[in-house]
């Protein structure tokens, strides 16, 4: 019970930290917390939120997906070139293709981890480079620029519904669907079990390899989705799109309390971790802090999050002692 409370406090703590940050910024720049700006910040963070949730599922199974940004870039390039070649292709088809392609790329990762038993960090480090290389090969290194994209293609993520762009609504939809999937389905439970104790999961009749495969496929599908949204929103596609973004995604998970050893994590944590980074990224330029500090603060936040996780682990040790005493 204490640990549950501790974990919920961790998420509450993170929410409080974000609120405190907003309050501090607001004391000097009240415009930052105006509803319109908050929506803008959320919208700007939406890709990170979607990717962080996919990454969280992968980390839950005791794996890691370093290829998310490369998957995003390759998918983005493919749909941008597709739009260039067939401007009449409806957005719904573009979306379906992006998700399917991302899912396929994720399945390659998953199959390598499952069937060949290669460590996930090695697999995705490899495919990360391969997917970027593929983006270069199909584009010949050339950019797809705003004027080459159809208006419908560019407009979709920016379309406003109830005062918020579609991009934000998609992030919210992903959050809700994944929260239900994790809490209320067998597959969701399998993600936690496979990472929490792979041996125990196997004895319980869960195919750990297949579960990991599903996690990679999911992470890939979400990266594919973001690939289209990203290219359409910024109206440009190029090989180095979102280079290094996979580290932000992992950082969001770690800050959000997702245990890198698997089995522990929540959608709320991943979302808050992403928002924490998103607020920092958007606020620091406003209060005129150099991008160097931006990176240093993100780094410090990661270390603090890990220390808090370690503290939570130690607290658990004390609880065991207390409980055994109580039982005796």
């Amino acid at each position, binding site marked *: 019970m204490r640990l549950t409370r501790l974990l919920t406090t961790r998420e509450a703590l993170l929410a409080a930290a974000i609120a405190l940050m907003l309050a501090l910024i607001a004391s000097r720049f009240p415009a930052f917390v105006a509803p319109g700006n908050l929506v803008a910040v959320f919208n700007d963070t939406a890709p990170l939120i979607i990717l962080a949730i996919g990454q969280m599922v992968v980390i839950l199974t005791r794996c890691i997906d370093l290829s998310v940004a490369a998957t995003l870039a390759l998918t983005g390039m493919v749909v941008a070139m597709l739009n260039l070649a067939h401007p009449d292709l409806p957005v719904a088809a573009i979306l379906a293709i992006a998700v399917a392609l991302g899912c396929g790329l994720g399945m390659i990762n998953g199959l390598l981890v499952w069937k060949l038993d290669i460590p996930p960090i090695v697999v995705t480090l490899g495919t990360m480079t391969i997917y970027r290389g593929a983006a270069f090969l199909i584009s010949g290194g050339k950019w797809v620029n705003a004027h080459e994209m159809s208006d419908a293609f560019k407009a979709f993520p920016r379309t406003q519904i109830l005062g918020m762009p579609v991009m934000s609504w998609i992030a919210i939809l992903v959050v809700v669907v994944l929260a239900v999937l994790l809490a209320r389905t*067998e597959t969701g439970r399998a993600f936690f079990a496979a990472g929490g104790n792979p041996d125990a999961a196997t004895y319980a009749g*869960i195919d750990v390899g297949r579960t990991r495969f599903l996690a990679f496929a999911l992470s890939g599908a979400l990266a594919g989705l973001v690939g289209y949204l990203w290219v359409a929103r910024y109206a440009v596609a190029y090989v180095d799109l979102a280079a290094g973004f996979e580290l932000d995604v992992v950082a969001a998970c770690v800050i959000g309390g997702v245990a890198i050893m698997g*089995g522990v994590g929540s959608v709320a944590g991943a979302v808050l971790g992403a928002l924490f980074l998103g607020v920092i990224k958007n606020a620091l330029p406003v209060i005129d802090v150099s991008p160097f500090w931006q990176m240093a603060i993100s780094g410090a936040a990661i270390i603090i999050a890990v220390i808090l996780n370690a503290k939570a682990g130690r607290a658990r040790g004390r609880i065991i002692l207390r409980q055994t005493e109580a039982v005796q």
Partner: protein
Amino acid sequence: MTSDILPGTAGTVTVPLPEALPILALRGVTKTFPGVRALSDVALELYPGQVTALIGENGAGKSTLVKILTGIYQPDGGEILVDGAPARLDSPQAAAAARITAIHQETVLFDDLTVAENIFLGHAPRGRFGLIDRAEMRRRAGQILHELGARIDPGQPLRQLGIAARHLVAIARALSIEARVVIMDEPTAALSHKEIEELYTLIERLKAQGKAILFISHKFDEIFRIADRYTVFRDGQMVGAGLIAEASEADLVRQMVGRDVSQVFPSRTPRIGAPVLQVEGYAHPTEFADISFTLRAGEILGFYGLVGAGRSEFCQALFGMTRPSAGSLRIDGQPVAIRSPADAVAHGIVYVPEDRGRQGAIGAMPIFQNVTLPSLARISRNGFLRLAEEFRLARDYCERLDLRAASLDTPLGTLSGGNQQKVVIAKWLATRPRVIILDEPTKGIDIGSKAAVHEFMAELAAQGLAVIMVSSEIPEILGMSDRVIVMREGRIAAELSGGDLTPETLVRHAAGIGETWE
């Protein structure tokens, strides 16, 4: 039989005459773990140039003794004498300084280092500036390996070597610290016949160099072949010692298993029903062959055998964790194919692994989710879990096992070990199994908890479950089973029940004594 631990004035023995003083002697050594007395008032003497065999069932205290001799455990009482003088082996370093070394069942070496580096790790020859003198290290490693008659290149990475060659490297390492006492813990377990012969030659060579060897083995033919002396342990006590030349196999078996089965087992009148599980000709390419038997409702079928006889491997195949290469399976007379643990659970077969903490509990997951994990399909509707139903199921089974926890929402890892075990068992019962496989159900738990597990097992059988119990403890096998299958080297050596079921018959069939001796 009275124990004679004094060196015999054995003029008739063909082995080198014992010198007056043992290199290493233990007197009254006792070691207690919480709830378990692992060793009690144990004595042992090792003489230069002689092989002493240490014999005992699993759990007799042999491993604990090895750990005391190598400085990993500290005894609670008694004394250790090296060359007649009291010594303290309070760390592995102290044991190495006393020139005692152990070669383990699974030799602890480093795959990515070279043979020479493995041999000299921690005591490499130093050259100028205190740096490791690689040339000298290789030269000396080569010399030691040559003395052993091993054709191994000292510069080769260890990874490239087979098990037998690794043993040689481990022995070379022992020689490199100029060990006087060499402990070999089941050294032949993974070796082929030819490699075993080579090991014997090597042991003869070590004897000639005046080393004292402690040889731990389950195999009587080996003991009679290589040992000069023996010491028998049972339940943490030394129950006999003497010269091999003066002992017979029957003596050793009797000392090993003891006469009295001191534990109390629940009295049960088995109500054996219809056949539930029929196994026909199950085989695996490397682990077991020709396994056929019928298991009936309400029956407890014991599987006995030495470690490595293929019992767990067979049970894992039965549970779908590995695929058999041949054989068929019937449940309630209907042929079924089990290709994965999920299939097994769906057909009502569950497997409670030996290490229930490590292989059964998911510490970070709430208690109720641990309980329901294999039963999720049953509490789902339209692909969604019914949480209220799930909680009810978990509460039901936790109450049945009298689990004390503040809330079932708590992560399992916050419970004590005993309560975690209850959750793991609740998890399997909640699947409503027909057949339950218990692998070493009481290994490593104290006497009180053992009785509870036995009660529980009897209760399961009384409810009509068919129980397979894999156990290496003879009292448990005798006390709980209605019928016993003894496995040896991956095959069924005997099926025993009723009057045939005695400690002697179990040990004979498990060790294959009837065939090689008599």
